[in-house]
């Protein structure tokens, strides 16, 4: 295969691997803070135990997150040197700032992890706050670079391909920065909430657990459901704004997302199906009349551009329509699940029946799939450009051979590590079950 394709595949899979851990790294500290604060308010030692157990899980995840982050951080320069040459001139600032976010997270994570028992409660909570802040800041800052790739700003190209008139802050506050950054942070929060709900529900589905243990998992589930509902609502409201930004700045990407070929007013929204080039429409989809026009700019008569406005060589692959639908579909399903769960608890005041627990179990993995779909949509939907309308992917990539060999090496590594993390988490929590910790607390 050609080197450019290999480089894209290697980099895309490395990010796809990193993001699994990174997402948890952004969301979990926030859940730990919630547990710490509930412990402080309610004086219920179950919450302290929750914070402690989540921290153990977090430490294991964090190791892979940092290692894979180091890989992508270095690999982006190795595989896309011409891209980084422009990044270094125009949008270096968030990369630089991110370093300090990492440092804050690393320093305070060590403190929280290895010195928690020697710290007064307040300093302990300050430490985990700093961890969360570091993680969120690093996510926001890297998303800034990514947003800038989608909506580049703050420089001019010279006729010979050089860069002039760099305006660092215009690049930093590029048009899609704020919406994208919020979207990433909210979606990470909701994903971790649903993962916690999955684990708690899985435990509650077991028959032979003690009442104390049952209560412990119920509390975890409740936190997760409430936090999940709030953050999934935030994700979709802000996702709507993200889509409006596409309408404004990246109409080509929106057209591909929706499988719209002809420019239309009163455009319908197609849900599901696949975009067919021969038929020039989305086949097997459910169509909601006028909805796309309304979503794009809050008016039914909005004109939405179709793909045929551009030469076909500038289209992204048509399957991004599916990626987009997967993300939005899962987001909508999870909101429904969370609303239903809250209704069940607050209005009907009933215990969750097993079939609902089973739904919660599915929630975590689904949210993670939505994250992957979202990122892949955003990056693949940008093709053939690495920096929209500025730098083509083919020009950005390295020309070195040997990428094929590295691809095999790293994929092996990622697969092994996925299994290894699952195994270590299982091994550790099996040897230190909640029941044992609860007994220790009681005695």
């Amino acid at each position, binding site marked *: 295969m050609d080197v450019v394709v290999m480089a894209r595949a290697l980099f895309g899979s490395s990010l796809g691997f990193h993001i699994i851990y990174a997402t948890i790294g952004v969301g979990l500290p926030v859940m730990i803070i919630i547990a710490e604060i509930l412990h402080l308010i309610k004086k219920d030692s179950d919450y302290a135990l929750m914070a402690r157990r989540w921290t153990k899980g977090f430490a294991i995840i964090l190791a892979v997150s940092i290692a894979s982050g180091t890989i992508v951080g270095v690999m982006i320069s190795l595989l896309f*040197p011409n891209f980084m040459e422009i990044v*270094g001139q125009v949008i270096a600032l968030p990369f*630089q*700032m991110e370093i300090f976010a990492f440092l804050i997270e690393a320093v305070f994570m060590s403190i929280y992890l290895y010195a928690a028992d020697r710290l007064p409660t307040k300093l302990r909570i300050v430490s985990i706050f700093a961890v969360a802040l570091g993680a969120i800041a690093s996510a926001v800052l890297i998303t800034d670079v990514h947003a800038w790739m989608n909506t580049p700003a703050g420089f001019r190209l010279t006729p010979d391909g050089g860069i002039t008139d760099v305006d660092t802050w215009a690049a930093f506050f590029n048009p899609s920065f704020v919406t994208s950054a919020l979207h990433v942070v909210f979606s990470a929060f909701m994903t971790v909430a649903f993962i916690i709900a999955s684990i708690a529900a899985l435990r509650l589905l077991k028959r032979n657990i003690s009442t104390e243990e049952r209560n412990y998992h119920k509390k975890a589930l409740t936190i997760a459901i409430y936090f999940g509902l709030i953050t999934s609502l935030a994700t979709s409201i802000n996702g709507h704004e993200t889509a409006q930004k596409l309408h404004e700045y990246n109409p080509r990407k929106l057209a591909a997302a929706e499988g719209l070929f002809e420019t239309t007013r009163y455009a319908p929204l197609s849900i599901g199906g696949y975009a067919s080039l021969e038929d020039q429409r989305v086949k097997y989809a459910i169509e909601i009349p006028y909805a796309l026009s309304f979503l794009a700019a809050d008016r039914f008569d909005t004109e939405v551009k179709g793909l045929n406005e551009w030469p076909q060589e500038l289209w992204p692959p048509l399957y991004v329509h599916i990626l987009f639908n997967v993300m939005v579909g899962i987001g909508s399903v999870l909101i429904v699940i969370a609303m239903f769960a809250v209704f069940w608890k607050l209005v009907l005041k009933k215990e969750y029946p097993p079939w609902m627990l089973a739904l919660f179990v599915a929630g975590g993995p689904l949210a993670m799939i939505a994250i992957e779909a979202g990122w892949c949509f955003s990056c693949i939907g940008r093709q053939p450009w690495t920096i929209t309308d500025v730098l083509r992917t083919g020009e950005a990539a390295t020309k070195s051979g040997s990428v094929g060999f590295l691809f095999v090496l790293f994929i092996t590594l990622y697969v092994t*590590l996925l299994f290894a993390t699952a195994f270590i988490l299982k091994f550790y929590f099996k040897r230190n079950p909640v029941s044992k910790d609860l007994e220790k607390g009681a005695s």
Partner: protein
Amino acid sequence: MEASSVAITILWSLLFVYSMLGSLDFGAGFWGMVYSNENKNTNASVIANKFLSPAWEITNVFLVIFVVSVVTFFPFATTLLSSILLVPVALGLFLLTVRTTFMVFEHYAQRFRTLLRITSGVTGLILPALLVSILPITLGGFVDFENDYPRLHYGELMTHPTLYMHIAFGLSTELFISAVFLMDYAKEAEDWSAYHTFRKHALWLGPVSILVAVLTIGTFPVEADWIVQNIEANWLWFGLSIVFFLIGYSALFLKHRDGKRGFARLAVVSIIIQYGLAIYAYGSAHLPYLVYPDLTVADGFTSASFYPMLIIYAIGFGILIPGFILFWKLFLKDRRYLKQE
């Protein structure tokens, strides 16, 4: 000073910090493996791992800082550097990942302790070897252009003695610095069995590391004549570096009132100064080239967002200072941590 000189100085300082932290990190991994057998009558492994557990993340961040700083200060260097370094650096990343994850997994699954320790110990040798092999590549003679595209000649590099001397230099330095540091750390923990173990190793590693360093210069390829001349011109600084080595090394022999030998803290500080002087002297001898003869510091540099970045550095490290102090107090000074089983 010109902006590009400020930038290269910052970069070089980061390299210095990383080379010290990396030596401690990789060295501790290695010593942790050597003394991992619980029957041996020394706590050396416990001490090494006590340092490693909270510290590796910070060391890792400094590696990332270094790479990001190269790319953001010297974007025009990315194309050349990444083409010639793709394979060695990617292999390094692979090993680093294995090491990092195994080291952490070990904490949570003690049944696999031996396997995981061996991994972190062995990578503690291979990784620094890989990292120092980047140095000879920049000296000239190993890189060529084919159709305007740079290529690294692996064959010539692998068969040149200077590669192996550089590796020997890197390893002896790593082990020497980490032994002296861990000796001081063991003293802080009042763990005398570990103290004597590390002192013993520091005693032989010191002279070996100096000898290897001097011999390495003798193996530089002919194309690197330029830097040998610059090094000779900088002899004063290298001489001063040797003086600090002598001070630090002698401190290992000084006797305390209670009869114990070795002023560990003095030794650590002098040896850090020794390497600081040597690294800056080497760095200035390397100027004006990043990679001889194709890339100079000025060619690689961009001033586009240089000043905002300097401000970010100042603010960033400013914010972090309290964090570092807390870290120092909790892990390098706190007896409750040091003496914990």
